[in-house]
């Protein structure tokens, strides 16, 4: 490094540590809150060191849930959210990879029209067609179902574009060689294309899993029954500052449990995450 004095480096470390403290503080605060008894949480200032109720609070949240939400246990909420996030991630990858395969490796009438039809969905996020989409879901009887939570969100222009981009870099000789060796389109897809796409699929999976896990508007509209809520929606419904019956110790434990799974995915699959972020950036 040029010109970076020892003090410059120390300053850099100091600023980074300060940044991390600021960024992490809200989570730390909620974690600490989740280890205290309900009344201690609502009496400011709350102590900033862990209390003695960790096991008790988490057990109550995980198996019993919040009474003001009909007592749906958090394991059920986590299950719903995991189904939704995995369904969306896998669904998007499957239908995008097949679409991109069709568009790149076949020639047929209407090819580019279909490509544009998929592309334009980028410009139609849920937020701009809320009501009519909701009506479709009601007409199809999909309210309070996993299908309703997943299916409408799995069309993906971004993922299709990404796979198309990647498939275009695959040399024609590879296809030719495969065909000469007698491989049909299924064989080529399964034995050559899929293995080559592995790191792309992993990168996309991390991003899409987080996308699914953090959905808000859609599950808010799609779920009426408390036991079909995702954990984010349920948490929002538990929190009330006017209601004196809000079980704050359960709220805090639920909050930590809602944050943990996607954060673990990001931290443990960091390489795929960073790659996915850079590549899905449209």
């Amino acid at each position, binding site marked *: *490094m040029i*010109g970076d004095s020892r003090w*410059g480096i120390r300053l*850099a*470390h100091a*600023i*980074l540590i300060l*940044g*991390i403290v600021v*960024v*992490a503080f*809200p*989570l730390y*605060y909620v974690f600490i*809150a989740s280890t205290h008894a309900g009344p201690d*949480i*609502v009496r400011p*200032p709350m102590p900033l060191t862990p209390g003695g109720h960790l096991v008790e609070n988490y057990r109550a949240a995980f198996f019993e849930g919040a009474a003001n939400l009909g007592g749906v246990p958090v394991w059920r909420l986590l299950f719903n959210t995991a189904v939704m996030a995995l369904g969306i991630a896998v669904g998007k990858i*499957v239908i995008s990879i*097949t*679409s991109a395969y*069709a568009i790149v490796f*076949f020639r*047929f009438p209407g090819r580019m029209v279909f490509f544009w*039809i*998929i592309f334009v*969905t980028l410009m*139609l996020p849920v*937020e*701009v*067609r*809320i*009501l*009519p989409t909701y*009506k479709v879901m009601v007409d199809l009887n999909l309210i309070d179902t996993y299908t309703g939570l997943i*299916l409408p969100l799995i*069309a*993906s222009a971004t993922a299709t574009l990404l796979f198309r981009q990647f498939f275009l870099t695959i040399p024609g*000789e590879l*296809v030719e060689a495969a*065909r000469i060796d007698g491989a049909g389109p299924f064989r080529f897809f399964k034995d050559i294309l899929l293995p080559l796409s592995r790191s792309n699929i992993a990168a996309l999976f991390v991003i899409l899993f987080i996308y699914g896990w*953090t959905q*808000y*508007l859609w599950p*808010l*509209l799609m779920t009426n029954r408390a036991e079909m809520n995702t954990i*984010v929606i349920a*948490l*929002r419904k538990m929190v009330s*500052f006017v209601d004196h019956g809000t079980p*704050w110790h359960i709220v805090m434990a639920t*909050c930590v449990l*809602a*944050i943990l799974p996607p954060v673990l995915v*990001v*931290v443990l699959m*960091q390489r795929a995450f960073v790659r996915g972020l*850079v590549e899905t*950036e*449209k």
Partner: protein
Amino acid sequence: MSGRVVFPNKLLPYLLLAPQLAITAVFFYWPASQALKQSMQREDPFGLRTTFVGFANFRRVLADPNYLNSVQVTAVFSLATAFLALALALPLAVMAEKVVRGKGLYRTLLIWPYAVAPAIAGMLWLFLFNPAMGTFSYLLRANGVAWDPLLKDGQAMGLVVAAAAWKQISYNFLFFVAGLQAIPRSLIEAAAIDGASGPKRFRTIVFPLLAPTTFFLLVVNTVYAFFDTFGVIHAVTQGGPGKATETLVYKVYNDGFVNLQLGSSAAQSVILMGVVILLTAIQFRYVERRVHYG
């Protein structure tokens, strides 16, 4: 592209495309066309009769002071969020490029908020700052600040901006680091040999060369603040106090689902579609130039 080797099947490609096309038709194009249709209709309060009213809904929406307020709120909210998220991420990225030891650890500890749902980000900040039990509200009030984000417009806006920007720091940090790594070292070394100090090198070389990244992030952050922050608003302020934090997306939801004004909500949806098309166009036009450095 025309010279590509392809498979000769005729039916197979349609089968491969069918699932995606079916979903886009049922859940994207049909509802979007309904939104277009409804935006030109008026429905009586019982939903029994609809009449075609042309652009009347649009005229009404655009003349509605509440809507214009919402436009202003969205502009302030988006710009403040984008600016704050960028201003906090840049110094962290610059510092992370300087250090050698602990680089990976710093990165890990800075990127995780990306995985927190916007609504939960909002709630985290609400726990800290709500007037009833938040430790920070307590400290603020103990120091003589009249803190009540549930009643004061500016404080409510500050709170949702902080929550929305907090979540976006990780994203910006990663892209700034990538942008910094793409700057040729020789330029910085040359400037150092010519006697430019660290801050001067940053101002005259690093920052200008980061401009493409910064502009790209500005667009992405604006899109994020426009469309992905519904959860923050819904969880923290519900558009209040009054209508001080009612963004356009929140208003579409509120008018459609809570106030049941179908024509108005549909017209607002169509206007938002226009905004998305515009932002997407900017984003795409821009991406091609993003990779080129001097």
